């Protein structure tokens, strides 16, 4: 193994079709029009010295190290900024060029500290490399002269340091921040010798606009911007490609290692989802994997008021199996079940649902997607025939109009947001439909053309109004609809949508969005050459979540925005493997590949392969499991990698349900909130400790690779396998690739997927089968995936939510997430990302705050009909009056204590986005918080007692 650096071609690739042929140092080379001479040379292994160019950003031509000579041409042009042309004859090396380059280097080095031996970049410094390449032997300028060697370091960012004394002012960082990330946080101040890089207006990084994505660190050729982990531990010695375990973008990374220690996570240039970019979470927030809170020994206890007892794996597995069997004997076969996680690999999820369906003998399996994207699965399956987004991420680069509905990509899907922002800066128009002024609405060089600031819970009314304009103003793409859609459903839909109640004017009183804006936005969307919709949890987490998804699908079909690049319906998935965990058959009514358990053909196929009879009845969904638990008919639960006690709505109800079960088994990295109610704890393995695959929001199956030994000895899938065997259902996989092979043999959309192919191609977008052996970036090209190949229109009547504001609860609370923290925060809270967000806060509009005498930083009580909690207030105009907003990353904030049991009609996805609340100024935590804090402290004490006991026994 070696570190095997990724080649830098100096300038970005040209995507032109036309090519030219030229000669470089006597070698013929053919390159697309628009390619730089530098890149063309690199493509045949000729490295032209360079400093200010790197292939992730446009060339700048400032260092002049890359000069070349062109036969018959004048002067010495910079090869990074000079494009190839037919018949050119170029020399990259001769005496004259060498002299110029040496002169350039001499100037740079004269103002650069000569501490190479002790520099953190030693061995990975382009300045050092170039000094070697040009043969620099002496520096004639006076080292005692004016220089920047005394410049002060900026250590404010927790993950990287900025040492301006080493800066060569190549501006690669500035351009990376602009072009790659789109934040524009860095500038070059001053001119000539005085010029220097700094975050906007000479601030420290932490005080600037910087979002710590790491693009500048990646682009910096010197030690100026450097990961602190490299400064602390030295250069890594080998690298393994793997996939980020945080969000649904699914960025590919190189885990750069020293033995079994991760030194840094570097975004993979060949990554097909991220093309070498990353965000603060995947790039830097991996410290949780070795955090002291990791529980690494299996534990059991009889009751949740007992101390935990550390036991051997064998004992823990046997105990769990015998408990589950005992419960089934006492309460019946259907009295147990399990919950899979979007944070786990495809193979782990597949195995969980197999264990439940085949080993437990029922279909009581559900997944956390229940609480986020289950309406996407339902709505897109009904209309298009497949439960997934239609495009790849790169498709956005051909969109002319982008409509973002109920999503906050810059926080939730940062790397994709950077790509989207790039397209918006280039050409595309932007429509945002969101109650909140998300960052995308106004960000450097981007301004939304329309921000439809609708009231929470009125998505359907808005979507219908958009459709009304399209139908009544004759903006329907009749050719597309005729050729591709079910015409009966279309004419029904057209009649329904054209009713006056759906007009923007009628909808205005519901949505609060001016009719004129709706009309203009609808025209913009419908008349664009390519228009694409991106949506998130602001669509799904509503009582009409599925209806909105269907409405979005209707819009795209009616305007013919499907089946090619630049268009489509694109759900932005929250967690890394939401798509995958759903694909793997995590829903109680569906086998892998979204096939209903009542379908005899499918079931017999699984029965034959799994050698057992399977139940043809749908199992319990998560909220129904809770109900059944309170009813004493569901008494045992195996939860892998999920924290339902924190993430699910109506916390007090969930806690009561967990308390009433006889055996709760939790498999996780940490003693999470759910584990505080558990009887068996299986220590989990982090994404760095196991092999498998994740599937991102664009259906891309990417490899997850084990880079270190599991701290608790086993990878998660091995634990599930042991439990299955202990329960008497044999499983004998020796590697996750065998699990994938079994899945592929049973699932038509995965038929062509194998580890060997993933390794060869880097990643695969399903469907992957005989028709699409290398996968499918864009779906529904010729026809839809429904049985008859036609897209189905469905009627989307607006039904107001039952959650209404009243004098008692006059405000609407809506919830969301922020960039630095991830979901329930179990991982990110255990990293330095807390410097950006150390607690959940309540955002409230100045009017509402003033009415209640609330100031910034005050403690405020938030009360709904479900419960009450207390947070600090942030008075902010991002919210409209009447709406308050918070995140749910910290368990003690209890944001879900207030959310209610309202849910999507089709899938029971909770209505997180709408809760009627009252907010008042208070001076202490809520009763719930006090009780929960006490409970939580007790549980940590019971954990500590178990550990002490163990130490005493072994001592």
């Amino acid at each position, binding site marked *: 193994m070696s570190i095997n650096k990724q080649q830098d071609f100096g300038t970005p690739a040209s995507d032109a079709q036309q090519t030219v042929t030229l000669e470089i140092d006597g070698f013929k080379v053919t390159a697309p029009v628009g390619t730089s001479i530098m890149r063309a040379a690199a493509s045949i292994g000729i490295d032209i010295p360079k400093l200010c160019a790197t292939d992730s950003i446009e060339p700048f031509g400032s260092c002049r190290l890359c000069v070349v000579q062109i036969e018959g041409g004048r002067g010495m042009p910079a090869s990074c900024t000079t494009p190839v042309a037919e018949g050119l004859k170029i020399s990259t090396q001769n005496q004259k060029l060498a002299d110029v380059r040496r002169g350039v280097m001499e100037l740079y080095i004269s103002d650069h500290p000569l501490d190479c031996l002790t520099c953190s970049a030693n061995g990975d410094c382009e300045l050092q490399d170039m000094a070697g390449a040009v043969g620099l032997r002496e520096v004639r300028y006076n080292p005692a002269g004016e220089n920047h060697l005394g410049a002060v370091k900026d250590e404010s960012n927790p993950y990287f340091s900025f040492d301006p004394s080493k800066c060569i002012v190549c501006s690669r960082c500035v351009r990376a921040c602009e072009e790659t990330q789109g934040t524009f946080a860095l500038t070059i101040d001053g001119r000539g010798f005085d010029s220097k890089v700094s975050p906007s207006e000479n601030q420290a990084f932490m005080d600037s606009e910087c979002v710590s994505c790491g693009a500048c660190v990646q682009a910096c050729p010197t030690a100026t911007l450097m990961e602190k982990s490299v400064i602390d531990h030295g250069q890594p010695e080998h690298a393994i490609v793997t996939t980020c375990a945080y969000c649904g973008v699914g960025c590919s990374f190189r885990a750069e290692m020293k033995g079994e220690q991760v030194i840094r996570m570097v975004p993979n240039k060949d990554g097909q989802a991220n093309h070498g970019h990353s965000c603060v979470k995947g790039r830097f927030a991996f410290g949780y994997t070795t955090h002291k809170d990791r529980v690494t020994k299996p534990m059991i206890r009889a009751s949740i008021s007992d101390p935990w007892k550390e036991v051997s794996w064998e004992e823990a597995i046997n105990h769990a199996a015998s408990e589950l069997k005992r419960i089934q004997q006492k309460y019946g076969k259907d009295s147990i079940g399990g919950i899979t996680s979007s944070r786990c690999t495809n193979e782990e999820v597949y195995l969980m649902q197999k264990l439940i369906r085949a080993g437990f003998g029922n279909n009581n399996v559900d997944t956390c997607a229940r609480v986020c994207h289950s309406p996407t699965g339902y709505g897109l399956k009904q209309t298009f025939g497949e439960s997934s987004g239609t495009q790849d991420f790169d498709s956005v680069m051909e969109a002319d109009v982008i409509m973002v509905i109920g999503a906050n990509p810059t926080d939730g899907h940062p790397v994709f947001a950077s790509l989207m922002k790039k397209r918006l800066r280039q050409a595309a128009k932007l429509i945002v439909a969101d109650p909140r002024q998300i960052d995308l609405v106004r960000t450097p060089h981007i301004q939304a053309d329309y921000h439809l600031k609708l009231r929470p819970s009125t998505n359907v009314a808005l979507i219908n109004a958009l459709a009304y304009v399209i139908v009544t103003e004759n903006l329907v793409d009749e050719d597309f609809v005729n050729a591709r859609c079910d015409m009966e459903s279309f004419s029904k839909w057209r009649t329904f949508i054209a009713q006056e109640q759906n007009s923007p004017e009628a909808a205005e009183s519901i949505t609060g969005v001016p009719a004129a804006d709706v009309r203009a936005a609808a025209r913009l969307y419908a008349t664009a050459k390519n228009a694409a919709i991106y949506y998130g949890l602001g669509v799904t987490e509503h009582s009409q979540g599925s209806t909105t998804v269907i409405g979005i699908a209707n819009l795209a079909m009616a305007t013919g925005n499907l089946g090619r690049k630049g268009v489509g319906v694109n759900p932005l998935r929250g967690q890394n493997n939401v798509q995958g965990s759903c694909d793997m058959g995590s829903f109680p*009514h569906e086998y892998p590949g979204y096939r209903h358990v009542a379908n005899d053909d499918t079931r017999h196929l699984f029965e034959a392969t799994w050698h057992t009879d399977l139940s043809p*009845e749908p199992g319990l969904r998560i909220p129904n499991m809770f*109900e059944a638990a309170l009813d004493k008919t569901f008494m045992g639960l195996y939860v892998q990698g999920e924290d339902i006690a924190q993430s699910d709505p109506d916390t007090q109800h969930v806690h009561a349900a967990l308390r009433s079960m006889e055996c709760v088994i939790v498999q996780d990295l940490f003693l999470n909130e759910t584990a505080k109610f558990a009887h068996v704890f299986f220590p989990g393995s982090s994404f760095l400790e196991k092999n498998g695959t994740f599937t991102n929001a664009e259906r891309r199956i990417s490899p997850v690779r084990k880079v270190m030994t599991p701290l608790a000895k086993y990878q998660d899938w091995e634990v599930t396998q042991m439990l299955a065997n202990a329960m008497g259902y044999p499983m004998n996989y020796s590697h996750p690739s065998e699990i994938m092979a079994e899945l592929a043999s049973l699932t038509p959309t995965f038929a062509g997927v194998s580890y060997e192919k993933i390794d060869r191609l880097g990643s695969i977008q399903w469907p992957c089968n005989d028709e699409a052996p290398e996968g499918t970036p864009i779906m529904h090209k010729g026809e839809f995936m429904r049985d008859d190949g036609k897209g189905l229109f469905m009627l989307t*009547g607006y039904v107001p939510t039952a959650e209404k504001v009243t004098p008692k609860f006059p405000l609407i609370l809506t919830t969301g997430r922020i960039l630095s923290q991830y979901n329930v925060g179990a991982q990110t809270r255990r990293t330095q990302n807390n410097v950006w967000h150390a607690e959940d806060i309540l955002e409230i509009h100045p009017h509402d705050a003033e009415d209640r005498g609330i100031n910034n930083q005050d403690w405020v009580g938030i009360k709904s009909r479900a419960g009450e909690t207390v947070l600090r207030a942030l008075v902010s105009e991002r919210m409209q009056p009447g709406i308050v907003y918070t995140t749910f990353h910290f368990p003690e904030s209890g944001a879900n204590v207030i959310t209610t049991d309202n*849910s999507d009609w*089709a899938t029971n996805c909770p209505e997180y986005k709408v809760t009627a609340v009252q907010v008042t100024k208070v001076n202490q935590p809520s009763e719930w918080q006090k009780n929960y804090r006490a409970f939580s402290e007790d549980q940590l004490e019971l954990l500590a007692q178990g550990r002490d006991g163990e130490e005493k026994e072994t001592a």
Partner: protein
Amino acid sequence: MSHKIERLIKMANDISNFFNTETDKELAAEGVKKHLLRAWEPRMRHEIIAYYQQDGSGLSPLAKEAVKMLAAD
């Protein structure tokens, strides 16, 4: 009434609210019924049928119709 049956009633009514937009009420009821069959665990279906047979007053007309069809199957 237990929390649980209240919840099932609400779920059934929520489902029928979606299908209610369909003007052909027979088709609408069929849609609700299919959804119940497709997504509800047998325990839940039995309970809503039992509730419909004993009382049923909390169910919307369309939900009632669908549960009736479910009971008849």
